[in-house]
């Protein structure tokens, strides 16, 4: 009886941890969605600026300087965005690690043992299916994030390759 009670408490604690992790994950997704929106705006501004720069005569220093001012401002915004993205990625890795730990703990609880044999086969099966589904959803979300990160990296590379010389050595 006491073993059953401790199992229930362990499962409750694990459920609480999972709920906290789910909340963290949902907040992280929301942050990422907002960051993606900011990145899209930055990309649009960068494209527009490059078009404008390509149409400006090379000897029009004042006009080019104004464009380069905006370019520098955009670069600073992009640097801040990249730093924020690194934070988000780091946080996401932390959340992934926490989820792995929780999955391990859940496996420990679910392993059939003499004292937990009271749980029916159907209950165990359902729990395993739920975990599989949750794991698949997390994997899909991770894949989507990885694809988005790759797209951002390609955009950054393209931007770096097409960037003109710095206005000054400072």
């Amino acid at each position, binding site marked *: 009886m006491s073993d059953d009670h401790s199992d229930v408490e362990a499962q409750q604690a694990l459920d609480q941890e999972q*709920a906290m992790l789910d909340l963290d994950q949902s*907040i992280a997704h929301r942050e990422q969605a*907002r960051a993606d929106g900011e990145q899209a705006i930055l990309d649009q501004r960068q494209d527009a600026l490059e078009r404008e720069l390509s149409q400006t005569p090379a000897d029009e220093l004042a006009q080019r300087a104004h464009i380069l001012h905006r370019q520098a401002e955009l670069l600073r915004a992009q640097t801040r965005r990249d730093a924020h993205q690194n934070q988000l990625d780091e946080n996401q890795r932390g959340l992934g690690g926490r989820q792995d730990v929780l999955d391990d703990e859940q496996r420990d609880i679910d392993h059939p043992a003499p004292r937990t044999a009271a749980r029916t086969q159907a209950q165990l099966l359902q729990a395993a299916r739920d975990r599989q589904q949750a794991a698949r959803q997390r994997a899909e979300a991770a894949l989507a994030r990885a694809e988005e990160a790759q797209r951002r990296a390609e955009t950054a590379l393209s931007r770096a390759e097409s960037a003109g010389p710095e206005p000054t050595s*400072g």
Partner: protein
Amino acid sequence: MTSLSDPPDHHFASAGCPGDAEDWHATLDAIPGNVALLDDEGVILAVNAAWRAFAAAEGGTSDLVGANYLSVCDAADAPTATAVAVALRDLIAGDRESFATEYPCHSPIQQRWYLLRARRQWHQGRAQLTVSHENITERHLERQSAQLNAHLLDQADVAVQTVDVHGGILSWNAAAERLFGWTAPEAVGRPVQAVLGEQIAHAVAAAAHAGTWTGDVLLHRLNGAAFPAHVQARLASDLEACTPTVVVTALDISQRVDAARELEQARDRLLRVTDSMGEGMYTLDVDGRVTYMNRAAQELLGWRFDELDGHAMHDITHFRRPSGEPHAAADCPILRAARYGETTRVEDDIFIRADGAELPISYTASPLGSGTGLEGCVVVFEDITERKAQAARLTRRLAELEWLARVHEALEGDLFVLHAQPIIELSSGRVVQRELLIRMRENDGTDRLVPPGLFLPVAEEHGLIGDIDRWVIDRGAELAAGGVSVELNLSARSIGERWLLGHVVDAIARTGADPARMTFEITETALIRDEAEARRFVEHLHKIGCKVVLDDFGAGYSGFKYLKQLPIDSVKIDIEFVRDLVTNTASRNVVEAIVGLAAKFGLDTVAEGVEDAETLQVLTALGVDYAQGYHLGRPAPVAVTPAPGRG
């Protein structure tokens, strides 16, 4: 009176003429000068064609053949003529072999000079004289000019030497003596290489080959001292000997070189000074184009000088005002200084750096000019970022002190008031609680309300927040004693103070309030600030029957652990997730996760900032327990019944 050059009327006299008369005349006529043949008494025996032509051109009627040349000279009564007569008689007497002299023979329209040459020969045992007059006007003028030039060069300390094409020094003027230390007798006849050195010898050879050579070289005096000199070597012909020579002029340019060096050093010093300046400095021409930037200017503006050299500075660094409005070039004080010579001092302006950032500056623009007029302006500017930041800090500090005085006044004058915003139970739609929000009344007779964001931070920073929290707790307890369930906001700073809990207990005891009607909002900031004291406070509140709600839930990543550690009764969802709940799926997911989390911990959920029916509908659907916001009820003044003993 007939001058020596005036030839007598001519006709040929054959008496005493040597050889065949016809050949002899032909030979005599072929001589280009004016030639006459005299006997040993001075009688003119014959003249040549040039003599006759000259006599005709001068308007004479006779070539003087048969006249006595000595008598003509004697009669001329001129020193030159007298001297000639004496010399000719000496020739006839055999005292000398030849004689030559130059003399002027000016006409009314031209100055002329002639060279008289006389030579004695013997004919049939008797002396005869050949007298010739050659026009040397051109040569004489050239020689005069050369002498004048030599004199001027000598006066100007220009050493002049003539050197033959083999390198032997032919002449050496006084300036050369002074310059090189060699006297003329010492230098003349020596090889130029031995006196003036290898470089001048090469210069002479080059001039002999190409006609001229010019250059600055280092020469040496006789005493070995070296000096820089500007040297010209020019091929010329000796007027007398008609042999090619090279005229070498040398001018000591030590002073010029020294002056140039001093100028260069002065320029270097100026550059070093301007480059060591902490202030930025640049110069513009009258059109506002950059002509110079010191190092500080380049660093402060982020542009290198070579990038801006010749470009319009205003269009690149000064096109915007601090207000963000465009700064037209026509209104620029710097350009006015450059164009119209107006000196300007501006205390607060901005330059735009190369990276687009605004640089707060003060500057002075002063016109640059010389004897020829205005040449532009020089701008000296200073980065006033720190000065402006200090001024802003001072202004902020003064504002804080002003607010501090008003908070003191509000505490002493009972100017704080409480407003209450209803909290609705979504399942029933009932008002179950009211969040108390503090305001401050203006003490100017208007009773206008000051929002807490203006005075609470100042009160917290200057230690008055405890007094305000005591006031809030007292009024909250009085309301609770009157049967109103209230939710109180306390500052994070007070929650870490030990007196707070005692004051809550005293207020409840003094008013007889039901502790269950008093809920305290705790923020994550308060929990982090002093975790142990916050934990003690929360646990004790719970122990005496008060409730605790965790405010701004979801705003921080680390807030959730407190759910397991502290006896929290409910969580208030951060307003950021509620605000865009209807339009943002991600926010909806967060609220859903909070509701799920709260269920796992047995907590209630409260949503604040509900401003429309759609949001309320979503919150209800997601299972949120309570809500507050303008859509459900705005904060309104709440009447507090004073507890016994309160004035």
